[in-house]
């Protein structure tokens, strides 16, 4: 059973879309304590001996199973660093849902730094969904600094959906990946900042085996006085294919700095990058207004669609 208070339940709904106890393996962490855990015949979750985090071991050949490991913080002033390691067996096909929600009604900062390492076995397929969310009316900041390391063996595939839509005051998100031959990595980041928020997103994908491919795509919206920096680097060390894209909408006094980078160390490496930053196109607003929406409603629809 999972023991959560109403605020924690609301946070869990926001970050993991969970209304009831999920099916399959899970590990819920609330205010730095274990709030519930379930393992299955194929997926084991154990606490690290030093208490710094958990190990998730998925047996080879595990298909159509999921792991939920949400973290919620509803008390002000908590600062934690958690190390979670995922060992994904060969030929498995799983969905992993992580994410962190912070509700801070107090004066002290609350901070969760989650360090995730993924060891993806040969030909395994992983869909990883990570959502970050903040709420609460206190002056204390909501800070999330996730670090993700991905080690992909031959023929493996990983799809990462990294989402931060609301309420996180400060974030430095760092993701690194190393891909062996024929491994495929797809990252789709959705980031929205508002108020005085700051977000720095860093991606580095190293393509080390022939046939490896990485696609890092970010869609970002910076509102009010918020600031975002997007650093994405794809390094091609073999016959590989890499693509990175940053598409950003700025509103009000928002700032976005996009720094796409490519490094080719092999003559057969094919690497591309794209970046575009701008306000909402006037004709998009006009079109939705001709359908009867107000300018504000049109703006909301455009942003929601863009970040979907």
């Amino acid at each position, binding site marked *: 059973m999972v023991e959560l208070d109403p605020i924690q339940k609301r946070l869990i709904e926001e970050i993991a879309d969970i209304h009831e106890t999920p099916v399959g393996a899970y590990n819920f962490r609330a205010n730095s304590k274990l709030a519930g855990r379930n393992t299955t015949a194929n997926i084991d979750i154990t606490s690290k001996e030093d208490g710094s985090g958990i190990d998730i071991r998925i047996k080879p050949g595990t298909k159509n199973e999921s792991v939920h490991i949400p973290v919620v913080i509803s008390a002000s002033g908590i600062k934690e660093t958690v190390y979670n390691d995922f060992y994904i067996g060969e030929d498995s096909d799983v969905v992993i849902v992580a994410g962190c929600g912070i509700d801070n009604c107090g004066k002290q900062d609350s901070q969760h730094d989650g360090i995730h390492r993924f060891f993806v076995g040969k030909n395994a397929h992983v869909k990883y969904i990570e959502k970050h969310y903040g709420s609460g009316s206190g002056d204390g900041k909501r800070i999330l600094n996730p670090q993700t390391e991905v080690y992909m063996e031959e023929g493996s595939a990983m799809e990462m959906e990294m989402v931060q839509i609301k309420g996180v005051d400060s974030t430095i998100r760092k993701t690194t990946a190393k891909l062996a031959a024929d491994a495929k990595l797809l990252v789709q980041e959705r980031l929205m900042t508002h108020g005085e928020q700051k977000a720095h997103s860093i991606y580095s994908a190293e393509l080390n085996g022939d046939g490896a491919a990485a696609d890092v795509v970010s*869609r970002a919206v910076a509102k009010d006085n918020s600031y975002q920096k997007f650093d994405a680097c794809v390094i091609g060390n073999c016959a590989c294919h890499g693509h990175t894209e940053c598409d950003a909408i700025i509103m009000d006094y928002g700032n976005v700095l996009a720094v796409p980078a490519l490094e080719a160390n092999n003559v057969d490496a094919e690497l591309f990058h794209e970046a575009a930053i701008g306000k909402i196109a006037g004709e998009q607003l006009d*079109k939705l*207004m*001709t*359908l*009867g929406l107000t300018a504000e409603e049109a703006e909301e629809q*455009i942003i929601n*669609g*863009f970040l*979907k």
Partner: protein
Amino acid sequence: MLQIRGLTYEVEEAGETKRIIDNLDLDIADSRFTVITGPNGGGKSTLAKLIAGIIKPTSGSIILDGEDITEMNITDRARRGVSFAFQQPVKFKGLEVFDLLKIAAGKETKLKIDDACKNLSEVGLCAKDYINREVNASLSGGELKRIEIATVLARGTKLSVFDEPEAGIDLWSFQNLTRIFENMRKNIKDSSILIISHQERILKIADDIVVIANGKIKMQGEGSKVLPTLTGTADAVMPCNRYTEVENG
């Protein structure tokens, strides 16, 4: 009934005032399929944008069913029954065809998949292939045009304005598009349709034709009377003078 009175639209170009629409009067009656045609640069698209509220006139007035809408913004005009299909359909990253149709139908209608299917089939698109497609550059010009028309159909308003539906699509795609307009004309009831077009097939089904050149109405009347005078006019056949001189040696 749409009434346009003394409508003028001017722009500043290189320090000079250029009059795009010049003191224009026009009535668009209910239950009529009206086609506006005329030479490029004559002010047709500008007039359509002035009706939809995308641009504001320098002077004059636009009256819809007795209400002066000249000072109203795009949204208020749309809510009073003006629909507008853009000449260049607008693309959206992330918004899907179904999203756009739901917005078009309005919050109160709560458009269902079945209704969206009907809208799409009316413009010759198979719903299952399109309903979840993003309205972005992955769609062809012809597909975007059809979706643009479908959004206007989904609204089902009193006045529908189409700005050059044939622009930017190939002839074969347009042949199919004309059927959509033929159907619209059949089902016009008490609404009115205003299309800016150069296409003979569209002009042929017009109840009324209005010819606009240099920001003024050059000719207007029933389609059957105006159309024969358009083909074979000096505008259509006049060769370039210099070319003639060369030809004559």
